[in-house]
């Protein structure tokens, strides 16, 4: 693990303690899994703190694990332009989660896409509506129970 990331991990553990469920390292990438109640605060900290300095939200997406109770994993990729390190932060939710728009405006369309394709509702999002699918589409295509060939209307 890069030294700068070791500092980040250390600070996260000091500040959030038990709310950090897991810190994994695979192929030089660090993934932090947090509990949902601290989701917004963790990411605010990662943006504000000068040793973390994650000013660029690279990507926000989701993955569907339908057999779990909290079926969606929300996954955020962060990058610091000055310190040049990256981090991945994950949490899980069954339906709703606070928006990251107040921290990074990038989250606007990225969260709209997650809502459109998975059906996760982002609380506090300024403009949560479908973005890729048609406005009157029913269903959430990237869920595992949505067939890849679609339903027979289309």
């Amino acid at each position, binding site marked *: 693990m890069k030294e700068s990331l070791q500092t980040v991990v250390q600070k996260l553990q000091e500040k959030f303690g038990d709310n950090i469920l897991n810190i994994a390292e695979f*192929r030089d990438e660090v993934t932090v899994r947090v509990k949902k109640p601290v989701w917004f605060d963790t990411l605010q900290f990662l943006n504000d703190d000068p040793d973390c300095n994650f000013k660029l939200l690279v990507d926000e997406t989701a993955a569907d694990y339908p057999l779990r109770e909290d079926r969606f994993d929300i996954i955020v990729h962060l990058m610091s332009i000055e310190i040049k390190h990256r981090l*991945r932060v994950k949490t899980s939710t069954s339906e709703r989660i606070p928006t990251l728009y107040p921290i*990074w*405006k990038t989250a606007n369309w990225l969260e709209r896409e997650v809502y459109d394709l998975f059906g996760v509702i982002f609380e506090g999002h300024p403009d949560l509506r479908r973005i890729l699918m048609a406005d009157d589409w029913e269903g959430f295509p990237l869920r595992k129970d949505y067939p890849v060939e679609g339903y027979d209307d289309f």
Partner: protein
Amino acid sequence: MQDVKDYTIPGGDNFAQGEKRMRLNMGPQHPSTHGVLQVIVDLEGELVVRCDPVPGYLHRGTEKLAENKYYTQIIPLTDRLDYLSPFNNNLAYVMAVEKLLGLEVPPRAQWLRLILSELQRIASHLIWYGTHVMDIGGITPFLYALRDRETILDIFEMCCGARLTVSYCRIGGLMADVPAGFVEKVDDFVKLFQKSIKDYHKLVTKNPIFVGRTVGVGVIAPDDAVSLGLTGPSLRGSGVNLDLRKAEPYLYYDQLDFEVPLGTKGDSYDRYLVRMEEMAQSTRLIEQALAKLPEKGPVKADDPKVMLPPKELAMSRAEEMQRHFYQVIHGFPTPVGEAYASIEGSKGELGFYIISDGSSRPYRMKIRAPSFVNLQALPMMTEGRMLADVITCIGTIDIVLGEVDR
């Protein structure tokens, strides 16, 4: 048959009679939107009060399709994302899979990937140059740009047979080695192109109409650019120095000497200059890479579980033939885990995020498309400006709908 529901257009749709405000639909079919992009613009006279881009007309469900295909079968899907630089999409995808597998690619393949990636960057920027200037009104540069791009497409065609849907990368290397004559052809192109860039500058850079339509148009401050998640020339035009080839070197960029052009004001003219200089820097990179290219060597990794056996062996020995059949029919297993790999594509950071559950198909593949994230900047660039600036701003962000919509 489902009923068509009444849905509210955000911002309201009740423009009273005689009110100055008008809602204009730049429909998905429009010569200046660079593809099927719909932009809903609220106007008061010529002034844009609200600008709402509506993507999604080219959404083909690439990420969903990828969950049902073997890793090698996904490569042709990636061609069709940013269809103006297909090799770069292939490259970013196979790099993500190679990272997941921990696979090492032989040097000759990496050098060839670098040369082709830079050629692809030039080709993509040439289309941007031709179409952007054409939208603003200058029709001639488009023909010059396409003429030079023809040579690049010829080079790709001699390598893999296709001009657009190249699918030239494979997980672990390239589809096949480049044919004889490749180095000479690329070298000739680079020498020709270094002269052509001067023509492009002569046609456009000091033209008063072009300058008048781009200076001060679509200004994005550096902090806003980072907050909006811009990457690539759109970010560097605002003066933020982030180029993944320097910041997180992949392939052999750390062994080569090149500069990253930066803008100062963050307007369309600065982004134009940044991209023009990037094309020149790409030629420098290609020259250096051609000199360092190893003369001989394998272009596929040496891992029997992942790579198909060489054709001569597969056609003559039973063991290799069995392995070939098995790997094509069943794919190859991957470790459980996730990987994200990104490259500095021509539009910005192009990344692939793959979650693997151990099987031979990805559990989830997310494409971090730079055009999708960059397009978010359009409302900030255009609100408060004239309608004609919307066209300039769409061109200066340089979007490709295949990537926006996936």
